[in-house]
């Protein structure tokens, strides 16, 4: 049938349910979003008319869109740096043998498995300027004279949200990195030691190359996950103060459901999706770990 063997047809039949499922849950919403972005619908559930690329023209010439895009880039870089550093240090520590290391390896993920709402409530109260324990400690120990408003200015709020999100997510990165570190054969380090390599040389020539596949995955997935973070920012600051923590996902939500501009938000989503796709393809092309054959060919 269709020039295909029976074996091939049976194979397609097996994957058909999954393809249908993917079409329904991914392709259909994507297509709906694109169609929505070509209209002028405001409140969800109301009618709108076709306006072509007007929404795209509006957002691509909008300061708010590009400011939020810039903030998203800073958000990704800030989280990437904080999470990678914290995860790396934690993974190096957890690779060592010390009393309680098995317990530590399990409970390191505690902050990651706690629901986001709980994380937000805990940190809001800890950082409160009118009774929070962090300010109480800072004032009591004479570090500051008056309580700090961690969310009172744009810069402090953005930094605070990045650090809180990094605290929440770094255990996930730690687990992945630890798995990568433990795959590096110990014999390589022993041989290097015999050859007189110091700690930095071992790290540069053994650890880093050995971690490359893991760092590639963390870099790609971590960036995409970070970029799309909405819950922590919305719950902690609502995108404020004065829009200073309004990244693209927050702007899209605000545009759709507070400004009641659903089609415009859909256009923002499409543009964001394209930007992330370009990033992912570029990252894969440039940063994919090379095989030994590829290294030799170079």
């Amino acid at each position: 049938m269709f020039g295909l063997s029976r074996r091939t047809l049976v194979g397609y039949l097996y994957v058909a349910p999954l393809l249908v499922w993917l079409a329904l849950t991914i392709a259909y919403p994507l297509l709906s979003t694109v169609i929505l972005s070509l209209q002028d619908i405001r409140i969800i559930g109301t009618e709108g008319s076709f306006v072509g690329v007007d929404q795209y023209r509006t957002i691509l010439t909008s300061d708010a869109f590009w400011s939020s895009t810039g903030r998203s880039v800073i958000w990704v870089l800030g989280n990437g740096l904080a999470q990678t550093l914290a995860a790396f240090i934690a993974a190096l520590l957890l690779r060592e043998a010390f009393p309680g290391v098995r317990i530590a390896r399990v409970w390191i993920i505690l902050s990651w498995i706690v629901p986001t709402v709980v994380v937000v409530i805990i940190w809001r109260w800890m950082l409160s300027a009118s009774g929070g324990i962090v300010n109480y400690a800072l004032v009591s120990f004479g570090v500051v004279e008056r309580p700090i408003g961690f969310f009172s200015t744009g810069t402090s709020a953005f930094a605070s949200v990045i650090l809180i999100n990094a605290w929440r997510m770094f255990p996930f990165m730690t687990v992945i990195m630890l798995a990568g570190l433990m795959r590096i054969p110990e014999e390589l380090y022993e041989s290097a030691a015999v050859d007189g390599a110091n700690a930095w040389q071992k790290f540069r020539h053994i650890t880093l190359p050995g971690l490359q596949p893991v760092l590639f995955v963390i870099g790609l997935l971590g960036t995409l996950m970070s970029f799309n973070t909405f819950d922590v920012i919305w719950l902690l600051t609502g995108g404020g103060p004065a829009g200073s923590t309004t990244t693209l996902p927050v702007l899209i939500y605000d545009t759709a459901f507070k400004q009641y501009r659903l089609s415009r938000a859909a256009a923002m989503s499409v543009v964001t999706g394209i930007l992330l796709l370009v990033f992912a393809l570029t990252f894969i092309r440039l940063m994919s770990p090379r095989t030994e054959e590829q290294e030799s060919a170079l």
Partner: protein
Amino acid sequence: MNIHFRIVLLVMAAILAVGMLPALAQEPVQITLWHMEQPPHRVERIQLLIDEFNAANPDVVVRQEPQNWGEIYTKAPAAVAAGNAPELLFAIPDFTPILKDLGQLQDVTDFVAALDAKHDFVDTAVEPYAYDNGTWAVPLYNMAHSIWYRPSVFAAAGIEPPTTWDELLAAAEALTTDTQYGIGLPANRQLYTDQVVYDFMVNAGAEEIYNPDGTLRFDNEATVKAYEFYSQLFRFSPPDSTNWTWGEAEACFASRACAMIPQFTVITTYDTQAEGDPNDLGVIAIPRSAEVEESGTIAYSNGVMLLTSDPAKIEAAQRFISFILEPENYGRFLNMEPGLFLPVTDTGSQADSFWQDPMVVKYRAQVETMIENSKNGRLFGFTNGNTFPSIASISAQNILAQVLQMIVVEGMSAEDAVKAGQAAMEAAIE
């Protein structure tokens, strides 16, 4: 006809009748109520009333689903679009137009008229919901801001409760110490901030956001004055109040970190989480500027909207609302948060069920003051007999709060910020 054949026919008819009985038995009418009174004690009180109603009306089952004010402007339209809207939804006047635009709101003019004949609604409670040849919600309760403070704290600082802006500023400064902020003022982009900003706008003579022809007049001298004063007062507020959510101002007051706060009520928080001494809980009207003769405040006539067109559900929902407004139940409903929810009917304002509540008895002086303060209440978009439904788009974006943030966070001048606010409002309603 053969006797055997008749017997067979009779038996078949009997079997058919018995088989149809389940279909004939009526399922109770299901009514879902969405409200935004999330604190557990309020949910509990509403459940108590729901249980009593359900027990007395076995053909109806009412159930509640508490929602969040921060999300309801988003969630309700989405629920309507998805066909999952509740039958009853609590409302404030600037929220109703959004649902009306979706074509789901039931006109309750006749029902409100019938209730009015029985309970005598306060006219100003109905007015914000009556426009476009209909009435779009049934008023349920009123709310108004006051300033809350501790007389002992004032006495220790040697100051009297303020009545004017100059006195308020001086009091806030005098009360600010190493361990206490003179006043707790919100500056987050949310409804509470909108409300407090409007308190100061009313007391600056800037309560009208619209011209009579529906154009905006937000950008005016009085509005600028209101924001300038707010930003001066804000120096004595906790630095992170730019991020306050609901409950944080009351927590600041209860913990004595804030000497005074503008709020609808702090009675329950003060009673359960602070000293609970009615002799040391003061409440005054929002102080006024020199430009106005009398203190005013923001006041919300809260109502309930009907979102179903099913006749059986409409009838059941109306029965439930009528039950709530009966004097023996209405007081208990209002006192789900003593002092916060004030009566909008004459029968309710005299009901024993309101005045005999233990918390109202304990804080009677405060409740009486709040009722007195609410008489000078206004609401942006619904002033001087005018109703401008487009205010819904402005409220949904918390533009009053956004303007404040431009000043206290971004350092803009009040003039520039108010100008930007006018532009934002015009864009929101276009």
